[in-house]
């Protein structure tokens, strides 16, 4: 446990170092970078994927994944447009969006946890289905006639601080407290470390997973509310294709894709790192393809680097280098989920690596 903790600390330290480096680099790339209002303003673009990343990490910590979140968001924006056009007020609309998106998340959770289906495949399906739903709700036209009250949340500033940034910070703090100090949080890590063991230990695995998916859906709904403020526009293709960025943020934040590990701080830092890079490169007018290349390389190197280091230490130093990210234990976990006998032969948490 202590080694795991120190690894996590090291990971977040690494992120901080990278952020500082990225800021310094951005400042050299562009003379326009180093202004507080500029930096605060640029955070705007990471709040919507950031909210989805916080939701996704809840799911990933429990060893599952949800790639339907961006489609869930699109359902949220198009529904907001429809309800607003039908004369609904601000509060009922906002509540309805969050509830509907949470329900969509719950559907994922029930399919995954209730029926024991593989989460990647299920959410691959619901990603398409929800996206289709967004088109059915939103029709072919975009909608942009939102009144100011609807766009305040995502579109205004308090001083030089975007309101949406404050919302994000509140959500992040809540998520951190939830994961750290609540029963749900403890259950989450226990399930991620080994669902079978957790179930034997009395953890309500199914319910916890459904809750995680529901929270993720609700956060995508909150993302939808920010979206209509930030872009004053709702279309069925909103956030389409953005899920890979969200997954990148979560993974780069040190959340193990196999579950059991990860902190809100790490995800927030990784969002800040991605944001800083994107902002700096954007201000220097670096072409989009180059940015894609840099982000992809960063993801691979940041995960492979510590791994290489650990392997080198194991080989040459003889030390017990703990790798950062453990292997994809999905098959094993699934099997142990449904077959207690299988779990005796392997414990995903103890297994450091698996291709």
């Amino acid at each position: 446990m202590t080694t795991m903790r120190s690894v996590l600390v090291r990971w977040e330290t690494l992120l901080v170092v990278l952020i500082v480096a990225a800021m310094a680099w951005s400042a050299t790339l562009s003379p326009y970078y180093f202004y507080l209002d500029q930096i605060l303003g640029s955070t705007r673009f990471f709040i919507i994927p950031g909210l989805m990343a916080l939701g996704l990490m809840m799911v990933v910590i429990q060893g599952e994944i949800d790639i339907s979140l961006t489609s869930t968001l699109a359902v949220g924006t198009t529904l907001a447009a429809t309800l607003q056009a039908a004369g609904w007020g601000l509060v009922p609309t906002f509540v309805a969006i969050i509830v509907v998106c949470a329900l969509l998340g719950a559907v994922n959770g029930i399919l995954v946890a209730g029926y024991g289906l593989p989460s990647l495949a299920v959410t691959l399906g619901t990603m398409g289905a929800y996206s289709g739903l967004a088109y059915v709700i939103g029709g072919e036209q975009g909608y942009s006639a939102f009144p100011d009250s609807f766009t305040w949340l995502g579109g205004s500033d308090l001083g030089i601080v975007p309101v949406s940034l404050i919302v994000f910070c509140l959500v992040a703090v809540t998520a951190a407290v939830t994961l750290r100090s609540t029963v749900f949080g403890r259950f989450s890590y226990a399930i991620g470390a080994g669902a079978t063991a957790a179930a034997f230990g009395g953890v309500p695995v199914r319910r916890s997973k459904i809750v995680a998916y529901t929270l993720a859906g609700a956060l995508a709904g909150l993302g939808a509310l920010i979206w209509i403020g930030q872009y004053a526009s709702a279309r069925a293709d909103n956030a389409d294709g953005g899920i890979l960025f969200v997954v990148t943020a979560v993974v780069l934040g040190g959340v193990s894709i196999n579950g059991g590990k990860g902190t809100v701080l790490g995800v927030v830092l990784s969002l800040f790192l991605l944001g800083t890079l994107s902002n700096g490169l954007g201000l220097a007018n670096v072409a989009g393809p180059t940015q894609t290349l840099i982000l992809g390389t960063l993801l691979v190197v940041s995960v492979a680097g510590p791994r290489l280091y650990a392997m080198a230490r194991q080989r040459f130093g003889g030390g017990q280098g703990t790798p950062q990210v453990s292997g994809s234990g999905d098959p094993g976990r699934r099997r142990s989920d449904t077959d207690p006998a299988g779990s005796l032969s392997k414990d995903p948490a103890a297994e450091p690596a698996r291709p």
Partner: protein
Amino acid sequence: MSPRTPSDAVPTNQFSRRRFGAVALGGVAGLGLAACGVSSKDGAGSAGAAAAGSSGAAGSGSAPTSGFTLLETPKWTGFPYFEQARIGGEKAAKELADSFTYAGADHPDSSLQTETLQNFLTQRPSAILVAAIDGDAIAPVLKKARQQGIKVVSFEGDAAVDARDVFCNPVGYELIATTELDCALLNDPDGGKVAFVAASPTAPNHTAIIKYMREHIENDPKYAKLTAIDDVQYANDDDATSYNVAVNLMQAHPDLKFIISPSSVSVPAAARAIVASGRKGKVYATGQTLPNSVKEFMKDGSMKASMMWDPQELGYIAVYAAHHLITGDLTGEEGATFEAGSAGKFTVGKDGEIVYKKPLVFTPDNIDDFDF
């Protein structure tokens, strides 16, 4: 920052911006790395801004007439059509001695485009040129730009009317629609059944063009020989999807005569599907195309006409419009006119639209005159 860096030349004082971390950063910037990453084509992005800004601030009676910083973002970078517009823009900027920078995300995503525009805004250019993906989504950031005195020119895809000064529209949706129908009749004067393929339900220009095509087919006696099928198919500007959609449309409507699409990706893919299905001469694909992508079909007789406009000229005119807006020679008012170098004189129409109605129709006879 270090006094040696060009960033100090940027006139930030006129805006109330907060600097921080100057001490912490001094060391880094002082290494002299400061200029290395500015990727403006002529390496004069910030210098150009400095020149424009300082001469403006000097205010010595004569307003500056060149050296403005123009930042352009297409729907996405790496797409040949917009690379052509970029070439035209660079040519115009060179003639006008302005600094021209072209940047953007690598796929059409309106939230990424908004981010690009926000980054543009921070750089305090004299003008921003944008081909909007979702004209409403970028409206807030463009309005902010206009409040700060930055001129905004949209081209190819329009932004919300109050979020830009002028919109350079090479043809106009209705004229595109009728030209595409003309192309259909050039392919087969006897007319027949028409199917439409658009990029997506949320592409506003495609939706508008197809709407006009339907109206003209219904009401315009010139196109009485055409009939339109009810549903529109979407192919996401994707080759394989377009190909499959075309094949499926031919299956769904054995008597189909034309597949018309405003997507320059879908038309050649559909033309290929027609040839591959052995329906050459029975079904024709037409619509908007880059000429190079359909030369093959023009040569083998499977396509007799398609249309486009000159994207280089569009980029060229947009830069001229931006320049004249900055100098004040041009306003967004209806009836205002401006000279756009070698392209000629243009008039601003209703809602700040500069429609110059110059569609290019490609036929087997003239296709080799074009190379883009």
